[in-house]
């Protein structure tokens, strides 16, 4: 059916933009977007001016992973300079409705904590002030009392019966539990020679665009209408969620996007709860409110890909043919099931057999909530999680059956003559020739040479391995796939959902110049350039003649729920729809031209800026003259032509049907193919992984702009290298977030990012107008597991978990690190069981008798002098003190409010000191037992043993520094106490130290 054409896109063999004639599609013309971006004239969200009087928001966030909010005191913040409004959960709840949750369950989902926080970073209060600096000042004045609850961060722990429960409306922490059966998996497993299984956990990560979220919201009480400008990326199905949450009809929520957006990769879908939050704040403040997310907020609380625990088993024949798969997936969506989750789990539902011809399948899908940031769209969206399990399993099959991994891949591929191929779970693989793609990949990518490199390296004793992956890359999501999470009965009740409406408008102005508008909301993918190529080809113009606008304004533009930039839908759906819109106008213009040129419409061609007769090229008229006629002289148009001014096309492929009653779902329209292999070397000493060579073979159908396709592949590959080797949104067992800066969440730089060798093949899709398929997400699916397979090959490992940081590989290679030798008496601090509990003990000797030391411990003035960084101590009762302290941990210095209580008093021998400290940067709590023993010569030995825990932002920033810092601070306390006691005479009166402090103003 499809004619495959090899198309190696070396960057030098065609000078981009050198051609001056069409057809333009297929040429790497210069991007129309670039000149403004290169000269600082981009118009990103925060580059656009705002209405005078616009206010600025800052958000107070939870330092706790799971806690009840006992009280929020905003009085001081409301009095602060510049503050116009302070809103907490109750205020927002009064102005909005709960966000829709994607499963049928009686749970609520608010854009701010209402009564309880469920993840570190969850919004607790919003301050609206005249500038951002003042808003942040006021944030520090809000006092929140929390009652912590136990937290759960591991999805497999979350489904245990004794796990802390996040939401009462779910069954435990399970939001959804569905079982699927396709073909006869039981029979296949019973009859197969082997059952081979793998357990994997896929970590949390995010594509982290360099531009963060930003929006400006305004509310007009006269019309009860909101106007929001946000760097949201779609899908615009979310518009319905937003208007419902803001309690207005859709036509009273005008949602617009700025001209430029600084990367998204799915992530900017996750801005939508903030749209509700800031829009409600604007309503409360009575003025427009702007909010720009900062990087720390973004890393902690924007959105994350799901982490997933999967057990995957295959029924395998003796020669490595996979007869059936048995999937058991436990998907971790974080603390709330925000729209469109649990879509990550179902996006790949039709593709659970990957590139393979597997007719029988059993699936159990569980969706669980944990005390982590809610999840959402991220490049690859479900693909990395699925293929990490499937392609690790294929490698394991090869190892267990002593086969070549590439043989196991090729033996199981969908046959080349089977397209269009319906998978067991319902996807329609539209076109391809996987065998040919692999053959070319092996030859052009020089696999034989790579194997020789590996063998040579191994001969020298180096750790070198090769990994392979073959994946199907789905694109253009069926808006109905998510309903596969519902039972057929629930679906019948809810009504059918399916399709993928793409829209494009082509318009011609009075002088015949052409404009195009699409609701595609790009974030750097060059949509404007490609659309100018596509439409120029239809009209016989140059791309420079066509001006394209990709902003969206839901009040004025053609759009649908499927609008936006996700699921790699631009090239297959949006660009094709623009072609259809242009062709409709061209068809009518051909009739206009035919009547002017005295010929038939089918004799008309558009070329070189003219409309002319094919048979008689001299019989012609300029494009602009024909094109403008509908404006100037509609009466001169032939009967029945209508107008040629503007045409909007809505296109949805008929192949995207709703799930059937047996849960078959064609989850995506197009399916590209990728075959990757790579050679990696792991350093024997440092266990650092170096990618020696990476080959990636793509068949994404017809290529519209070769350089942009390669750009998408390189960009996806770089993010996948990060996911494989460096990136993880890491949490402590108590739910504290450990990777809150770009110094902790490590993104690959140019040094860590090799250039992949890219090979192309083009098997056009029969189901898209231009024959193209999506290409942007594939390497995020194929590359992490390909690198993991290579590293396991290098190290001879059975199991492996991403990211492949040296410490993890060291554990795998050398076994877990030995526990440090049992402590020196004193200050060794141990982390036990992965929690952030710090334990230690120590001793200090002072030259004062125990009675005096005892009195000092109970004296606010002494405590003020000896607590490091203490500004004030307030005595609440004889055994309860409040203190304000400034503590610096690493580079992060912050003000904390501490509560210290004394208990188990045994004067003057022993006392237990318990306390908590909370501040904008985090919280800590601990308890210590202090024992006083008289020593010879009238002194006292103070022995202390303590247990402390630190969490919140400070834990994420200073994770590695915490142990040492805690030790130092506690040490300082006792050293100061000793100094204070030793410096004073046996009687009363301030110590020398205290006198000096008084002299120099008292504050540290």
């Amino acid at each position, binding site marked *: 059916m499809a004619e495959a054409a090899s198309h190696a896109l070396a*960057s030098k063999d065609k000078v*981009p*933009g050198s051609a001056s004639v069409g057809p333009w599609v297929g040429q*790497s013309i*210069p*991007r129309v*977007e*670039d*000149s403004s*971006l*290169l*000269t*600082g*004239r*981009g118009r*990103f969200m*925060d*580059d656009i001016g705002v209405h005078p009087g616009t206010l600025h928001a800052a958000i107070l966030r939870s330092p706790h992973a799971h806690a009840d909010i006992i009280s929020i005191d905003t009085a001081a913040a409301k009095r602060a300079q510049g503050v116009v409004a302070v809103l907490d959960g109750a205020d927002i709840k009064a102005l909005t409705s709960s966000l829709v949750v994607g499963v049928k369950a009686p749970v609520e989902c608010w854009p701010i904590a209402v009564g309880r926080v469920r993840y570190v970073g969850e919004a607790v209060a919003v301050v609206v002030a005249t500038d*951002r*600096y003042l808003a942040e000042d006021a944030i520090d004045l809000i006092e929140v009392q929390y009652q912590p609850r136990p937290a759960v961060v591991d999805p497999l722990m979350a489904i245990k019966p004794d796990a802390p429960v996040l939401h009462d409306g779910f069954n435990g922490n399970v939001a959804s539990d569905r079982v699927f059966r396709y073909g006869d998996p039981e029979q296949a497993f019973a009859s197969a020679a082997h059952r081979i299984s793998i357990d994997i956990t896929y970590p949390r990560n995010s*594509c*982290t*665009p*360099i*531009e*963060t979220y930003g929006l400006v919201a305004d509310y007009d009480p006269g019309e009860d209408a909101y106007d929001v400008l946000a760097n949201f990326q779609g899908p615009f199905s979310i518009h319905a969620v937003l208007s419902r949450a803001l309690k207005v009809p859709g036509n009273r929520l005008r949602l617009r996007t700025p001209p*430029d*957006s*600084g*990367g998204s*990769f799915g992530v900017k879908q996750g801005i939508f709860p903030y749209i509700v939050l800031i829009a409600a704040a604007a309503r409360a403040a009575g003025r427009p409110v702007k909010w720009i997310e*900062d*990087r*720390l907020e973004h890393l902690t609380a924007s959105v994350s890909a799901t982490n997933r625990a999967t057990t995957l088993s295959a029924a395998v024949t003796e020669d490595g043919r996979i007869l059936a798969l048995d999937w058991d997936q436990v998907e971790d969506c974080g603390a709330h099931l925000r729209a469109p989750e649990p879509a990550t789990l179902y996006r790949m539902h039709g593709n659970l057999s990957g590139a393979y011809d597997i007719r029988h399948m059993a699936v159990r899908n569980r969706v669980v909530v944990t005390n982590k940031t809610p999840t959402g769209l991220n490049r690859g969206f479900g693909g990395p999680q699925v293929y990490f399990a499937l392609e690790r399993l294929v490698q394991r099959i090869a190892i267990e059956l002593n086969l070549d991994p590439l043989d196991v891949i090729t033996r199981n591929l969908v046959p080349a003559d089977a397209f269009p191929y319906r998978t067991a779970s319902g996807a329609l693989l539209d076109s391809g020739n996987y065998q040919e793609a692999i053959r070319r990949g092996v030859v052009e990518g020089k696999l034989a040479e790579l194997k020789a490199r590996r063998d040579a390296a191994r001969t020298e004793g180096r750790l070198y391995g090769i990994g392979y992956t073959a994946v199907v890359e789905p694109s253009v999501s069926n808006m109905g796939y998510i309903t596969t999470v519902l039972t057929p009965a629930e679906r019948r009740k809810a009504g059918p959902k399916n399709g993928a409406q793409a829209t494009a408008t082509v318009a011609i102005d009075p002088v015949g110049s052409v404009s195009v508008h699409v609701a595609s909301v790009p*974030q*750097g*993918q*060059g949509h404007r350039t490609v659309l100018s190529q596509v439409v120029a080809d239809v009209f016989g113009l140059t791309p420079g003649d066509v001006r394209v606008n990709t902003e969206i304004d839901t009040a004025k533009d053609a759009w649908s729920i499927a609008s936006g930039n996700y699921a790699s839908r631009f090239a297959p759906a949006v660009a094709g729809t623009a072609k259809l819109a242009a062709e409709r106008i061209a068809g009518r213009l051909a009739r206009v031209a035919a009547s002017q040129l005295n010929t038939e419409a089918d004799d008309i061609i558009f070329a070189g800026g003219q409309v002319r007769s094919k048979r008689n090229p001299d019989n012609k008229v300029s494009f602009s003259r024909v094109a403008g006629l509908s404006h100037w002289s509609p009466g001169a148009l032939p009967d029945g032509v209508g107008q040629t001014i503007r045409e909007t096309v809505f296109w949805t492929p008929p192949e995207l049907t709703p799930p059937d009653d047996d849960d078959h779902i064609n989850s995506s329209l197009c399916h590209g193919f990728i075959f990757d292999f790579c050679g990696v070397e792991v350093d024997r000493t440092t266990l650092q992984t170096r990618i020696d060579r990476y080959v990636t073979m793509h068949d994404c159908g017809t290529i519209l702009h070769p*350089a*942009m396709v*390669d*750009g998408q592949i*390189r*960009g996806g*590959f*770089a*993010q996948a290298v990060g996911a494989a080797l460096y990136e993880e949104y890491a949490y402590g067992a108590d739910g504290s977030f450990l990777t809150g*800066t*770009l*110094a902790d969440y490590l*993104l690959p*730089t*140019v*040094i860590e*990012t090799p*250039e*992949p060798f890219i090979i192309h093949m083009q098997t056009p899709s029969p189901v898209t107008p231009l024959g193209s398929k999506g290409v942007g997400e594939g390497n995020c699916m194929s590359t992490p597991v390909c690198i993991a397979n290579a590293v396991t090959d290098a190290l001879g490992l059975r199991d492996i978990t991403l990211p492949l940081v040296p410490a993890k590989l060291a554990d795998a290679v050398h076994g877990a690190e030995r526990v440090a030798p049992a402590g020196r008496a004193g200050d060794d601090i141990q982390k036990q069981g992965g929690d952030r509990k710090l334990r230690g003990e120590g001793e200090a000797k002072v030259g004062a008798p125990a009675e005096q030391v005892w009195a000092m411990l109970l004296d606010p003035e002494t405590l003020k002098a000896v607590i490091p960084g203490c500004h004030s101590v307030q005595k609440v009762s004889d055994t309860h003190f409040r203190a304000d302290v400034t503590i610096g941990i690493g580079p992060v210095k912050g003000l904390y409010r501490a509560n210290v209580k004394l208990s188990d008093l045994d004067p003057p021998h022993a006392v237990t000191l318990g306390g908590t400290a909370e501040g904008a940067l985090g919280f800590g709590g601990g308890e210590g037992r202090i024992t006083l023993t008289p020593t010879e010569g009238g002194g006292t030995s103070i022995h202390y043993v303590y247990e402390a825990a630190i969490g919140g932002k400070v834990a994420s920033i200073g994770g590695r520094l915490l142990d040492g810092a805690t030790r130092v601070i506690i040490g300082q306390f006792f050293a100061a106490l000793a100094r204070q006691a030793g410096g004073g005479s046996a009687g009363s009166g301030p110590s020398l130290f205290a006198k000096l402090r008084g002299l120099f103003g008292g504050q540290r």
Partner: protein
Amino acid sequence: MSRLQAKHRHDVRFTLNGKPCAGEAEPRLLLTDFLRHRIGVTGTHVGCEHGVCGACTIDIDGQPARACLTLAVQIDGCELRTVESLAPAAGRLGVLQAAFKRNHALQCGFCTAGILMSLDTFLREHPQPDEEKIRDVLSGHLCRCTGYAPIVRAALEAAAELADQNREKTDA
């Protein structure tokens, strides 16, 4: 050194892209916010505000610097160059910018201004760099779109072109 009052706005006079410029800033105001929202040059972008991503890199007195780690009041008397200075004329691109466009060395363009400024200040001092040096300079920047390879190519091409231009100038 004079002591600045925390609550007051202070005069900041400096040279921006060759022209005198002045504004007022509280001592805590970041240079990024000052340039973007008080002076109105928005080409310099903010990506992390903790000095890692490099998007806000500008040229201060000939040295590349993170504007997000600089206070506005610190640049009093300094010479600043931002991405707005790189084009020789409206509607034209400089050598480095043109090389970026030719090589598709940008996608979303958000990190690009910082990268251009780092490379521009570097190439002024090091007219004939090898690839390793270019990569070393670029390692101070995060780009999430391109995978870096086209940026390296663009920088090398620009360096070669600039070296040719210099040679012609010297020969002439």
